[in-house]
C-alpha cells in the first residue's frame, strides 16, 4: 500500500472533526442567509424593482454635506479598478445589496392597512439572526462523553476491512489510551509536588505569562498603528500600493496571529502543564489574541470616526461624526471595508499558505535527500489551530453582518472553497499531527468558543445600535438619532393593548423571572450534556 493510502487512513480518523465543524459552519451560514434573504433582501429587491414609494415618518435633515453620498465613479474606469473594487469592497460593490447603505428607509404600503416597515424589519431580522445562531449552536451540540468508556466501546470502526488500516486504527487507539493514562498520572504527580517545587513552578509561570501578555500588547499596538496609518494614507493612486495600504490592518492582524502563537508555543515548554491543560492554555491564548485584536481594530476605527467620542472637535462638528477624509459612511468603514477585507484576506491566506508553503515543503521533502530535510517532514495538520481559524472567520462575519447583510452568503461560499482546498492539501501535503487530537472532549470545547465569539461580536453590534448615530446620507436608519429608536417609534404606533403588553414584556416584573428561567434552563442543559 502506498504511503498516501496509509496517511489517508490515519487522516480519516483524525481530521474528521475538523471537516465536521466546517460543514456545521457552512450550514449555519446558509440557514442564516435564508433568514436574511427572506426578511431583508427579497422585500427590498421587490420594493426597488416595483418602484414602490416609501413614506418616512420623521423629517430628514437635508443637510447637504452630511447627506451627500455618491459612490458610483464618474468618468472612465480602468479594468484594474474593478479588481480593486472586488478586493476592497468599494465602487460597484458598495452601491449594491451587499451593503447597508443601499437599503431604503421608511415604510412601504402594501395592501390596505398593512405596511412593511423597512428599518424595523432590518433591525429585527439582524437581532433574530444572532438569536438563531445562538440557539442553533447550543442545540446542535454533540454530547460530552465519558472518555474511557466511549473509547473502549465506540472507538472501533467496524467498517475497516484491510489489515493495514486495522493495524493503524489499533495503533491510534493504543496511543489515545496511553495519552489518557499519562494525563491521569500527571494529575497524580501534580498532587505530590513539594512546596518549594510548586513555588518555583508558579514563579516561572507568572514570569512567562507576563512575557506572553507583553507580546500580545505589542501586537495590539501594531494593529492600532496600522489601522491609523491605513485610514490616513488611503489616497494612494498606485494599484498595488493602494491595495497594500488598504489591507494593512488585515496583514498585521494575520501576522500577529501567526507570530504570537509561535512565541506561546516556545514558552509552553517551560511551563510544565499536563497535556490537556496545555491544549486549553494554547487555545485560550490564541482565542484571546484573535478576538481582542478584532476589538482593538474596531476601537481604533471608532476613535477615528467619532474623533475619540469628542463631538466638538472640528472634524466632527457639523454632522457629529468625521465626514471628511473619505469617510462618507460610518457603516462603510466599520463593516464593508474592514470586515469584508478581513474575510477575503482570511480566504487568501489559507489558499496561499497551501500553495506557497505546504506544497513546496512537500516537494522539497520528496525530492531532496538531505537527512535534515527528511527529518523536518511534511507540514503537520494541527486540528485545533485550523478550527480556530474557522471560528475567527465566523466571528468576523458576525461583527460585520449588521452593516453588510450578504456577508453570510459570501461566508458560505468562502467556507466551501476552504473545505475543498483543505481536503486537497490534507492528503497530499500534510501529515497527521504527532499528538493526536482528542476529538470527543474538544468538540464541546470548540462549540463553547464559537458561542463566546458570538457573544463577543454582539458587543460592537449592541453598541452601534444603541449609541452611535447612523449615517445621514444612506441606509434604512438615516433619519434617526439612534438605530434603536426605530423600535420605540413603531411600538408607539401599535394599538394600546399591544403596546401595554410589550411594555409588560420589557418591564422588570417579567424580564427578571424570564432571565432566571433561562439561566436555570441553561444549567439544566449543561448538566445533561456534561453528565
Amino acid at each position, binding site marked *: 500500500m502506498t504511503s498516501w493510502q496509509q496517511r489517508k487512513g490515519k487522516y480519516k480518523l483524525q481530521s474528521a472533526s475538523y471537516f465536521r465543524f466546517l460543514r456545521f459552519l457552512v450550514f449555519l451560514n446558509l440557514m442564516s442567509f435564508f433568514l436574511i434573504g427572506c426578511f431583508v433582501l427579497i422585500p427590498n429587491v421587490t420594493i426597488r424593482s416595483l418602484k414602490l414609494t416609501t413614506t418616512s415618518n420623521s423629517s430628514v435633515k437635508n443637510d447637504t454635506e452630511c447627506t451627500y453620498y455618491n459612490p458610483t465613479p464618474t468618468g472612465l474606469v480602468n479594468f484594474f479598478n474593478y479588481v480593486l473594487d472586488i478586493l476592497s469592497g468599494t465602487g460597484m460593490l458598495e452601491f449594491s445589496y451587499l451593503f447597508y447603505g443601499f437599503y431604503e428607509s421608511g415604510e412601504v404600503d402594501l395592501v390596505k392597512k398593512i405596511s412593511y416597515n423597512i428599518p424595523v424589519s432590518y433591525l429585527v431580522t439582524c437581532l433574530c439572526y444572532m438569536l438563531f445562531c445562538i440557539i442553533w449552536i447550543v442545540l446542535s451540540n454533540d454530547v460530552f462523553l465519558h472518555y*474511557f468508556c466511549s473509547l473502549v466501546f465506540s472507538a472501533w470502526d467496524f467498517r475497516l476491512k484491510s489489515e493495514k488500516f486495522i493495524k493503524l486504527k489499533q495503533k491510534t487507539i493504543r496511543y489515545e489510551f496511553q495519552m489518557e493514562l499519562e494525563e491521569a498520572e500527571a494529575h497524580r504527580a501534580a498532587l505530590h509536588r513539594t512546596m518549594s517545587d510548586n513555588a518555583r513552578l508558579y514563579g516561572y509561570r507568572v514570569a512567562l505569562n507576563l512575557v506572553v501578555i507583553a507580546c500580545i500588547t505589542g501586537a495590539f499596538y501594531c494593529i492600532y498603528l496600522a489601522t491609523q496609518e491605513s485610514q490616513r494614507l488611503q489616497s494612494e493612486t498606485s494599484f498595488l500600493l493602494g491595495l497594500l495600504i488598504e489591507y494593512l490592518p488585515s496583514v498585521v492582524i494575520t501576522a500577529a496571529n501567526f507570530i504570537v502563537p509561535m512565541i506561546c508555543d516556545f514558552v509552553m515548554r517551560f511551563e510544565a502543564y499536563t497535556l490537556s491543560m496545555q491544549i486549553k492554555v494554547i487555545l485560550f491564548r490564541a482565542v484571546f489574541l484573535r478576538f481582542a485584536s478584532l476589538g482593538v481594530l474596531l476601537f481604533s476605527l471608532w476613535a477615528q470616526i467619532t474623533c475619540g467620542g469628542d463631538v466638538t472637535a472640528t472634524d466632527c462638528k457639523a454632522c457629529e461624526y468625521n465626514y471628511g477624509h473619505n469617510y462618507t459612511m460610518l457603516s462603510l468603514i466599520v463593516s464593508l471595508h474592514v470586515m469584508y477585507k478581513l474575510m477575503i484576506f482570511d480566504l487568501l491566506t489559507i489558499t496561499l499558505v497551501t500553495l506557497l508553503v505546504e506544497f513546496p515543503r512537500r516537494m522539497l521533502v520528496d525530492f531532496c535527500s538531505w537527512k535534515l530535510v527528511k527529518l523536518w517532514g511534511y507540514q503537520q495538520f494541527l486540528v485545533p489551530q485550523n478550527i480556530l481559524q474557522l471560528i475567527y472567520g465566523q466571528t468576523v462575519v458576525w461583527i460585520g453582518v449588521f452593516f453588510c447583510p450578504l456577508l453570510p452568503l459570501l461566508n458560505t461560499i468562502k467556507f466551501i472553497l476552504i473545505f475543498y482546498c483543505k481536503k486537497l492539501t490534507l492528503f497530499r501535503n500534510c501529515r497527521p499531527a504527532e499528538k493526536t487530537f482528542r476529538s470527543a472532549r474538544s468538540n464541546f470545547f470548540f462549540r463553547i468558543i464559537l458561542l463566546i465569539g458570538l457573544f463577543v461580536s454582539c458587543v460592537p453590534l449592541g453598541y452601534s445600535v444603541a449609541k452611535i448615530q447612523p449615517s445621514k446620507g444612506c441606509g434604512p436608519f438615516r433619519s434617526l438619532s439612534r438605530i434603536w429608536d426605530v423600535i420605540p417609534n413603531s411600538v408607539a404606533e401599535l394599538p394600546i393593548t399591544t403596546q401595554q403588553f410589550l411594555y409588560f414584556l420589557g418591564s422588570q416584573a417579567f424580564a427578571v423571572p424570564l432571565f432566571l428561567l433561562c439561566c436555570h434552563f441553561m444549567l439544566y442543559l449543561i448538566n445533561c450534556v456534561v453528565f
Partner: protein
Amino acid sequence: MGNKQTIFTDEQLDAYQDCTFFTRKEILRLHGRYHELAPNLVPMDYTNDPDVKLPLQLIINMPELKENPFKQRIVEAFSEDGQGNLSFNDFVDMFSVLSEMAPRELKAIYAFKIYDFNTDNFICKSDLEQTLNKLTRDELAAEEVNLVCEKAIEEADLDGDGKLAFTDFENMISRAPDFLSTFHIRI
C-alpha cells in the same frame, strides 16, 4: 418486475423485507454471498426453507470480517446456538443489524452481546480486558489495561456492582455520537 427468480417464494421475500432493512435485490445478493461461502452445502432453492447452517470458520473468512479482531464474537452473537453456526436467516439478521439503516437501540443490543465475552449478560472486568486487548492488539502493558478497565467501569457503572448491565451500556452508548456510523459493516 425483473427476472423471475426461483430462490425464494414471493412470500418469503416479503417476510425478509419486513423483518430486515434490506430490499429484495439485496436479499438475493446476500443469498449469493451465503452460497459462495459453501457452494456444496447451500442449496440454490430456498423455497422449502432448508435447515442449513454454516460453521463459524467459513463465515469469519469473509473479506468483510476477516481482519476484524471481533469477528468471532460478532458471528457468535448472531448465531442461535451461540457457537457461531449461522443459518441464512441469522446471516441476513447479522448484516441487517450492522447495516446503516438499523436503529441505535437495536445496534446497542447486539454490541452488548458482542462485548460480553463470557455471555453472562454483564460486561465485567475480564470482558473489558479482552475487548481492550483486541482493540490495541495486545500492545498495552498489563497495568495499563488494568487501569483503563477500572476507569471505564467507574465511568459507566450506574448501579455500582462493579460490572456493566445492559442499561449502563445503553445509557453510555446513547451519548456516543460516532457509534451509529462506526458500528456498521457494508456488504
